[in-house]
């Protein structure tokens, strides 16, 4: 129960933070109906580029179709980045994720 509570609180915080970023689009339901993953994209940027640049900042996310190509087609996207949150993550790490999106922007929107 403590694990689930921690995860829900952190997913809620991450959604709140990511939804405030103008060029970030988050997919999926509100926090209370979610597991520990948040799929997202940044305007005009490929998810693999987002993931590679975040990786250089020490932030590990997954990128691509997530074994759900028909869903990606339905959403009209060619993939998504996906942050996974679990018991060992902290609010500070969510802040680092959101801050690191600035580096993606700096490199790809010169």
């Amino acid at each position, binding site marked *: 129960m403590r694990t689930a509570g921690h995860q829900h609180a952190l997913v809620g915080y991450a959604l709140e933070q990511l939804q405030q970023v103008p060029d970030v689009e988050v997919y999926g339901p509100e926090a209370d109906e979610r597991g520990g993953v948040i799929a997202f994209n940044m305007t005009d940027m490929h998810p*693999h*580029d987002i993931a*590679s640049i975040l990786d250089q900042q020490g932030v590990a996310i997954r990128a*691509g179709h997530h074994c759900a190509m028909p869903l*990606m087609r339905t959403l009209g996207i*060619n993939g998504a980045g996906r942050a996974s949150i679990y018991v060992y993550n902290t609010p500070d790490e969510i802040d680092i994720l959101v801050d690191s999106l600035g580096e993606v922007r700096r490199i*790809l929107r010169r």
Partner: protein
Amino acid sequence: MSLDIYQENILDHYEHPYHRGALETPTLEYRDLNPLCGDEVRVQARVDESGCLVEAYFEGAGCVISLASASMLMEAVEGKTLAEIKVMERQDRLDLLGIPLTAMRVKCAMLALRTLEKSIHLYESAATAPPAV
């Protein structure tokens, strides 16, 4: 820290690609995709009577690596004969980019070359096929 894959020459090709667009009357054409990441590319080219590839264009959707490598490939193959292009190896392709890539990103870098090879194969099979009855 590892060598930066988003270095200047790669981003230059991504932002100002060489021959991204369409040819009106291509001799070769093929469209392919990488189902793992969703990247898609179409390669078109014009070949003269001597088997030399005189113009090559690409169009597609993908990440920086796949689009920049397509752009570099178009530049590199123009003026080469089909025979010369067919012997281009995976390493020649990666040398053009000049950056170390993980296994996943190597697939992005190889997409345009693989697509061009398939278009050449189709073109040559059509040229040698027996006439339809």
